[in-house]
């Protein structure tokens, strides 16, 4: 410290932001008495500029800009070790999750969409859009009498080219929104993350290290309190990747046939077709993973470490619904109950649209922001970080 009188630091608390954190699952934040236990018991918190103690004081003081422009909010995987050891019930894991929830709308590439995903009151509209689009698609593109044709073929109701006409724009919309969000987010964290370390290694390498870490679930693997989350998340993620790959392969196979490049199998695929096997295994993994998540979060096991807010529930149930209707569609088709099978498939399409088109604004986007934040952290030299910010030193 120097002896000369420094200009006073003026802190401008944003009380509305504090309230927003509390409403989004962080209602315990004011209990924090800044002991720093959380930063130590966290297995992934870095040494020089640790979290989540500094985030807790920022949250209490309503320092919105610092919090939202802080990569550490996303380095946190919400495993709850900090909450389990917290002496005063401040639940840092829940507070950080609440800040992440607020980030979804803050960095949303399309601001109106960010708002619509932040509260259940917009849910009917969000479902109505795909419901209308898909109904229109069926109205214009389905084969007449698809309901009574034998065997049941879903592409009679929703031909692949028609599905593509609805879903390709939806995915493009999501992708562009995500890019806009990433740009906003990257600019913010590169400027605003505490520590002042400069990006020191190539971004390509950082991205590769990050991707590998995520595939191995390195961070979740270090979680002690919520150790079962490792398996449930791993199964969900790999299941989802397998299902995405299946859907993409089916589309590719369709266009290969359509454009007469070669001749490959058409849907419905035989159960022993490699792509079908991949899809069914993926569905099995995903449904098991999400069921475990649902059981832990809603099963009333009294977990003090799992705060579940609207964003969490919205994402979990859209994902669960998508997977379950997908599996049921297949089972009803095989059981040859046409009306039930087609209706289930219709619901499945609506849910898939909801999942993909709104991804950058829902909790699905944790995938994007966490990846970017981890990539940032992997590219800066955290060992050179120093806290110069007085607000974290009390």
């Amino acid at each position: 410290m120097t002896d000369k009188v420094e200009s006073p630091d003026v802190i401008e608390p944003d009380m509305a932001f504090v309230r927003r954190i509390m409403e989004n699952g962080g209602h315990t934040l004011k209990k924090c008495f800044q002991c720093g236990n959380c930063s130590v018991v966290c297995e992934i918190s870095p040494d020089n500029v640790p979290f989540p103690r500094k985030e807790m004081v920022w949250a209490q003081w309503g320092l919105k800009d610092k919090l939202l422009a802080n990569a550490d909010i996303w380095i946190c995987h919400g495993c709850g070790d900090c909450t389990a050891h917290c002496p005063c019930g401040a639940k840092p894991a829940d507070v950080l999750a609440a800040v992440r929830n607020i980030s979804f709308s803050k960095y949303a590439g399309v601001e109106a969409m960010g708002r619509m995903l932040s509260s259940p009151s917009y849910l009917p509209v969000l479902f109505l859009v795909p419901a209308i689009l898909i109904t229109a698609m069926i109205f214009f593109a389905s084969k007449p009498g698809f309901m009574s044709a034998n065997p049941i073929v879903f592409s009679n109701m929703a031909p692949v080219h028609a599905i593509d006409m609805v879903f390709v724009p939806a995915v493009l919309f999501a992708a562009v929104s995500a890019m806009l969000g990433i740009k906003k987010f990257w600019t913010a964290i590169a400027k605003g993350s505490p520590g002042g370390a400069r990006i020191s290694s190539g971004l390509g390498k950082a991205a590769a290290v990050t991707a590998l870490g995520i595939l191995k679930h390195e961070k979740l693997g270090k979680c002690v309190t919520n150790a079962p989350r490792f398996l449930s998340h791993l199964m969900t993620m790999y299941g989802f990747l397998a299902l995405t790959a299946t859907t993409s392969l089916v589309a590719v196979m369709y266009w290969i046939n359509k454009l007469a490049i070669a001749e490959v199998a058409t849907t419905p695929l035989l159960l022993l077709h490699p792509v079908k096997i991949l899809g069914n295994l993926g569905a099995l993994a995903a449904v098991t993973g999400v069921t475990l998540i649902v059981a832990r979060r809603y099963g009333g096991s009294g977990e003090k470490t799992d705060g579940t807010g609207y964003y969490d529930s919205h994402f979990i149930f859209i994902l669960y619904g998508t997977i379950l209707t997908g599996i049921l569609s297949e089972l009803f088709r095989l059981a040859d109950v046409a009306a039930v099978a087609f209706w289930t498939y219709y619901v499945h399409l609506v849910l898939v649209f909801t999942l993909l088109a709104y991804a950058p604004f829902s909790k699905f986007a944790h995938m994007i922001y966490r990846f970017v934040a981890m990539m940032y952290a992997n590219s800066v030299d955290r060992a050179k970080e120093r806290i110069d910010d007085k607000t974290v030193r009390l």
Partner: protein
Amino acid sequence: MNDSILVIGGGIGGMTAAIEAAECGRQVYLVEREPWLGGRVARMNKYFPKLCPPYCGLEINFRRIRANPNIRFFTSSQVVSISGKPGDFVAVIKTDPRYVNQKCVACDDCVKVCPVSRPDRFNYGMSQTGAIYLPHQMAMPARHVIDMDVCEGSSCGECVKVCKYDAIELDMEDSETTVEAGSVVYATGWKPYDASKIANLGYGKIDNVISNVEMERLAAVNGPTSGGITRRDNGEPVRTVAFVQCAGSRDENHLPYCSSICCLASLKQARYVRDQYPDSEVYIFYIDLRAPGKYESFYNKVKADPNIHLVKGKVGRIDPGEGGAAIVTAEDILGGGKMRVSCDLVVLATGMEPTAKSCDVPMASVDGEGFIAQNNQSAPGVIPAGVAAGPFDVTTSIQSATGAALKAIQAAATR
């Protein structure tokens, strides 16, 4: 109608309440579970802030007890039941056999021949005694006692053979005494919070991690190391010592309240280390350092030592290091970043858990934490004293006990 007073617990609080009431002319029954009086204070090395030995004050109190015919005290005893109402309580006191009668002169010949050894509870298990032992050097009463859980009994009888005073009775039996009292003072005190429950701090797993009550014994001349503050694994001198504040206190997973004495205890124990080792480095990790009232000057004195480092940040983990060291990790909140210190000895400043939390306290009104509340409606005529009432330091316990004595006299007189 009876104006006698039953005081349960023979530590500093119970002794004080008993003496004050007896010196006002009341008949007092003082009941102590251990075979000696003095409680936790007898196991302290020094008091803060004056750093004087507690035995000075304890001796004065022992003398006042011996000199006062109004006090009848029972050691190795527990109150098993209380019935009746204020002014007319009837209590049954069960006394375990000591196996050593009043002829004992504490010559220690018996101990030399005893073939058995047991952990010395007075030293928190850091040393051993025989099955027959003197509770500690200054024990009141100054008589040996036998731990029948480990004694081989008459099949051995070596101690009986060497005792020149016929003081040992291996067939002594327990006894019951019924007393009548107008009021009851609970001075049941405290026990140190079980540090092994704080899993991340390594107590019980890392040798050189000890609790603050153990540190008192290590530093005491009549303790297991004759006052040498040394490593627990190899007995070597210490150089770096860390104190971990709020080890179990102010923590809703353990004791939700501030135990109120641990900050000053650690500041005091930091002085023990610094006085014994001029080159030593001491770290005190805290959430807030609490030195109320006039203790502020003691805090300032300790803080002025450049080798005593006060670090704001709760210790979140203690890991085993190389060569038996214990590595303490905390976030240095004022300095920035995580801090790791490799220590020869780590002292957990464990808090006080009221004894009444884990034993029967008939007629008393106990709060959620196990402290006894004074409640004229639900528990008339029953008065808590000392740490039975709340986490107090010794001075406050004595004040509380003096007040309890007056309340007890009132309660017995006005019913």
